[in-house]
C-alpha cells in the first residue's frame, strides 16, 4: 500500500516580480485545501538560502513526499530547488516547478484576480504531476576516454592539443592533405602583424609530434552513431599514393608531373601539379597525388612521377583505409569558406581577373605566395598603383546576400591596405565601408593607425557600379561623408567577401544530429551561457563553423570546447537522464509502430515479441508513447495519467 502523498507548495514573491501581479498569500491559502497538499507558504525569494531552508525544514517537519515551487521558469532554478530537496533526503524528481513568473505574472497585466487564478491552475497542475512522480536515479554507463576532433584549422589544432595535454587520446581528422586550415594561407595577422605561418607552424608540428594525438589527414568521417560518451565513428583515410615515411620531399615527382591544374592553396592564382604538396611546411610532410587531375594510376598511361622518384615512395596500389573507433566526445571544428563567386553578380567577381577576394590578396602578400610577396595583379603581373578595397561584399545585405556581419573583414581589410601601402608606398589605397567594426583588443588603434599613418583613404559608402575599361577597373561609388559621388580607376579591386560555413557543414550536421542556425552555421546550446556546446550530448564546437570569428576567438573557443570535452572524459561514468520510456509488456501487442517512430533507434521488438527500450539511447521525447495504439508505452514522470490529471486541474469544474 503506497503512502498517501503529502505535497508542500512554496510560493515565491520574487520581490515584486510575481507578488506585484499575483496575490501570493491568497494562492498559499487557496492551495492548502487542494488534494494532497498538506503544507503551503509564501516567501520573498525562494531561491535565496533562507528560502531554500524553508523548503528543507518543511520537508523534515511535515514529512513531505513531494514539493512544488511556484516561482520562475524551471530553466532558471529547477536545479537549485531539486538540489535543496536532495539535501534533506527527498529524491530530486519529487520536486516540480510551477512557472508563475515568465508564463504568468510577467505577461498578464489584467486587473482583478485573473492572473492569480491562472497561477493557481498552474500550481494545481504541478501538484497533480508531482504526486504521481516516481523517484529516479540517473542511468550510469561506462564511456570511451578518446576524443575525435573534426577539422584541422587553428581551432581544431588548439582543441586537440588541449585535450591531449590533459592526458586523453585524440584523433584529429582533416579532409585536406595538410592541417593548418585558412590560417596557413594568411600573410600577416592583425593587429600585431606577426607572420601567420610563423605562429601557426609550431602548433602544427606540436600536434604532429604529440604522443596522444593521431593525425588523420586527407581523411573523412564517413559515419557516426551512438550517444554521449559512446560514439562510434567510421573514418576513411583516402590514398595519397605516396608513402609518407619514404617521401623525402625532394620534389622530383612534381617536376616530372606533366599535369598542371588550379592551385587551391593559392586560391587559383597559380597552378600546381597533379602530384603536389600544398606548402613547404605542410603536415603531414609528404606529397599527395590528386587522382582527379592525374592522368591515371597506371604505368601504361603515365608514370612520370613514379619513375622520377628515387626513394620509391610512389605506390599506385594504395587504397582507402577504414578505421572504426569509439569516442567519448567529439569536437566539431569544420571552419568556413568565402561566399562563392557564383552567388555574387556585382563587382565583377569571378568575371574580371583583377577583382579578387581577401584570401587571394593574402596569397599575393605572402612571401610563399605566387608572386613571392610582391603585390602584382593577376591579369598582367603589373604592380597596382590604385587599389580599391570593398567591405561587406555579400555581408550585411539582407535583400541580396547574407544579412549578418562577417566580423573579421573590417580588420583584415585594414591590414591589407596597410601591407599594400608598405609594399607600394607611392600607391593609393581606398576602402569603401558601411561601418567600421573594430571591437577587439588593440583593434581600433590599429584602424586609426592605418587611416592616419598609412594614409589609406576610407570612404563611407557603397560601390554602385564597376566596369572594366582600358585595363583598369572603373568604380563608381558614394562618399556619404563628403556627400559626393566618387569615381576611381583602380588597377586592382579586393572584395572583403562574406564568411560562410564550410562546404560539408550541412552533411556534418546531419551525421551528428546537430542544429544549424538560419545562416547555416552550427547552433550552440545557448547563445550566451553554452556557446561551445551543441544540443547533442558530448559534441562541442570550435571555430568558425559556429559563426564568423577571428584567430584569437577561434583559439579561445578551441580551448573552451577542449575544456568541456576534458570535463566529460574525466568523469568515471557518464550519467543519463532517467526520464525515459517504460513499456507495459502486458499491453504491448508487438506491432512495432514505436520502433519506427523513435529517432534514436532506442526501441526494438525483442525475442518475446514485445517492445524493449535501450535506456541509454532513449532521450525521453515521448513521441513513441503518444503513438502507441495500445497505450503500452509511457514516458516516466510524464505519463498519460499525469497529463490527464494536469489537464483536469487546468480545466475542470
Amino acid at each position: 500500500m503506497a503512502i498517501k502523498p503529502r505535497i508542500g507548495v512554496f510560493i515565491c514573491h520574487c520581490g515584486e516580480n510575481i507578488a506585484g501581479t499575483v496575490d501570493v498569500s491568497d494562492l498559499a491559502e487557496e492551495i492548502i485545501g487542494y488534494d494532497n497538499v498538506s503544507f503551503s507558504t509564501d516567501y520573498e525569494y525562494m531561491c535565496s538560502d533562507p528560502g531554500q531552508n524553508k523548503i528543507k525544514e518543511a520537508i523534515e517537519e511535515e514529512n513531505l513526499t513531494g514539493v512544488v515551487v511556484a516561482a520562475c521558469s524551471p530553466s532558471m532554478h529547477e536545479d537549485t530547488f531539486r538540489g535543496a530537496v536532495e539535501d534533506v533526503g527527498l529524491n530530486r524528481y519529487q520536486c516540480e516547478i510551477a512557472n508563475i513568473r515568465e508564463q504568468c505574472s510577467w505577461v498578464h497585466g489584467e486587473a482583478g484576480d485573473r492572473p492569480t487564478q491562472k497561477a493557481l491552475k498552474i500550481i494545481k497542475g504541478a501538484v497533480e504531476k508531482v504526486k504521481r512522480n516516481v523517484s529516479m536515479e540517473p542511468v550510469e554507463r561506462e564511456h570511451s576516454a578518446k576524443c575525435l576532433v573534426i577539422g584541422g584549422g587553428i581551432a581544431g589544432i588548439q582543441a586537440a592539443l588541449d585535450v591531449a595535454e590533459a592526458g586523453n587520446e585524440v584523433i584529429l581528422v582533416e579532409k585536406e592533405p595538410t592541417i593548418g586550415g585558412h590560417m596557413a594561407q594568411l600573410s600577416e595577422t592583425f593587429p600585431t602583424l606577426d607572420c601567420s605561418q610563423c605562429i601557426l607552424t609550431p602548433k602544427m608540428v606540436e600536434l604532429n609530434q604529440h604522443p596522444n594525438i593521431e593525425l588523420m589527414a586527407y581523411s573523412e568521417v564517413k559515419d557516426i552513431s551512438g550517444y554521449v560518451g559512446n560514439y562510434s565513428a567510421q573514418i576513411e583515410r583516402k590514398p595519397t599514393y605516396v608513402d609518407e615515411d619514404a617521401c623525402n620531399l625532394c620534389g622530383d615527382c612534381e617536376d616530372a608531373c606533366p599535369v598542371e591544374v588550379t592551385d587551391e592553396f593559392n586560391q587559383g592564382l597559380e597552378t600546381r601539379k597533379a602530384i603536389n604538396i600544398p606548402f613547404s611546411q605542410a603536415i603531414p610532410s609528404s606529397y599527395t597525388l590528386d587522382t582527379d587531375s592525374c592522368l591515371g594510376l597506371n604505368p601504361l598511361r603515365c608514370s612520370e612521377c613514379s619513375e622520377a622518384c628515387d626513394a620509391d615512395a610512389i605506390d599506385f596500389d594504395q587504397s582507402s583505409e577504414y578505421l572504426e573507433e569509439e569516442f567519448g566526445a567529439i569536437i566539431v571544428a569544420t571552419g568556413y569558406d568565402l561566399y562563392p563567386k557564383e552567388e555574387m553578380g556585382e563587382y565583377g567577381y569571378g568575371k574580371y581577373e583583377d577583382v579578387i577576394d581577401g584570401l587571394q590578396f593574402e596569397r599575393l602578400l605572402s612571401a610563399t605566395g605566387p608572386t613571392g610577396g610582391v603585390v602584382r595583379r593577376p591579369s598582367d603581373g603589373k604592380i597596382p598603383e590604385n587599389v580599391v578595397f570593398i567591405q561587406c561584399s555579400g555581408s550585411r545585405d539582407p535583400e541580396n546576400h547574407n544579412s549578418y556581419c562577417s566580423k573579421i573583414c573590417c580588420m583584415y581589410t585594414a591590414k591589407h591596405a596597410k601591407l599594400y601601402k608598405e609594399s607600394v608606398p607611392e600607391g593609393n589605397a581606398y576602402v569603401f565601408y558601411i561601418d567600421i567594426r573594430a571591437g577587439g583588443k588593440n583593434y581600433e588603434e590599429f584602424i586609426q593607425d592605418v587611416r592616419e599613418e598609412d594614409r589609406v583613404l576610407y570612404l563611407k559608402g557603397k560601390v554602385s557600379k564597376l566596369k572594366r575599361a582600358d585595363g583598369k577597373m572603373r568604380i563608381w561609388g558614394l562618399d556619404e561623408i563628403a556627400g559626393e559621388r566618387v569615381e576611381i580607376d583602380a588597377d586592382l579591386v579586393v572584395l572583403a567577401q562574406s564568411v560562410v560555413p564550410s562546404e560539408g557543414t550541412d552533411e556534418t550536421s546531419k551525421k551528428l544530429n546537430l542544429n544549424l542556425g538560419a545562416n547555416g552555421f552550427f547552433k550552440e546550446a545557448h547563445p550566451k551561457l553554452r556557446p561551445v556546446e551543441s544540443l547533442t550530448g558530448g559534441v562541442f564546437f570550435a571555430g568558425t563553423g559556429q559563426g564568423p570569428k577571428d584567430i584569437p576567438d577561434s583559439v579561445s573557443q578551441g580551448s573552451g570546447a577542449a575544456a568541456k570535452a576534458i570535463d566529460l572524459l574525466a568523469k568515471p561514468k557518464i550519467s543519463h537522464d532517467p526520464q525515459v520510456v517504460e513499456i507495459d509488456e502486458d499491453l504491448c501487442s508487438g506491432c512495432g509502430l514505436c520502433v519506427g517512430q523513435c529517432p534514436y533507434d532506442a526501441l526494438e521488438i525483442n525475442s518475446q515479441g514485445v517492445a524493449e527500450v535501450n535506456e541509454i539511447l532513449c532521450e525521453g521525447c515521448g513521441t513513441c508513447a503518444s503513438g502507441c495504439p495500445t497505450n503500452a508505452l509511457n514516458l516516466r514522470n510524464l505519463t498519460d495519467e499525469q497529463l490527464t490529471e494536469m489537464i483536469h486541474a487546468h480545466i475542470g469544474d
Partner: protein
Amino acid sequence: MDFEPKLVGFLCKWCSSAGADLAGVSRESYPSNLVPITVNCSGRIDVNHIVKALKDGADGVLVSGCHPGDCHYTSGNYKTWRRVALLKHVLEDFGLNPDRVRLEWISATEGEKFARTVEDFTAEIKELGPGPFSNAQE
C-alpha cells in the same frame, strides 16, 4: 459577463515553452485564458490529450512545437503535425469545429510570436463562442 474561453496550451520544453519564457522576459502582454502544460516534445502530445481537454470543458487547445527541421528530438514535431492534421478531420466528422485546435511552430527566440499567437487564438475562440463541452462561465 463576457465569455472568457478556457484554453489549454501544450508547449514543447525546448522551443515553445522557452519562447513563452522569452515572452515573459520581454514583458509581452497577452490574455491569461491559456494555461500552459510543458511537455518534453510536441511529439509527446497524444491526440487523446487534446480530446480529453476538449471533453473536460476546454474551448480551445493550442499545440506548439519547434519549427519543422528544428526539433530538439529531430522529428517529434513531424509526428505531431500528422497527428493534429488527422485529428482535425476526425473532430469535423464528430461535429466539432477543427479551429478549436491550433498547431503552431514557435521557437525559443519567438517570444513575441508566442504572445501574439495566444492573443489571436483567444480572440478567435471568443468569436467562435463556447465549445460543446465548455465549462467556461458566460
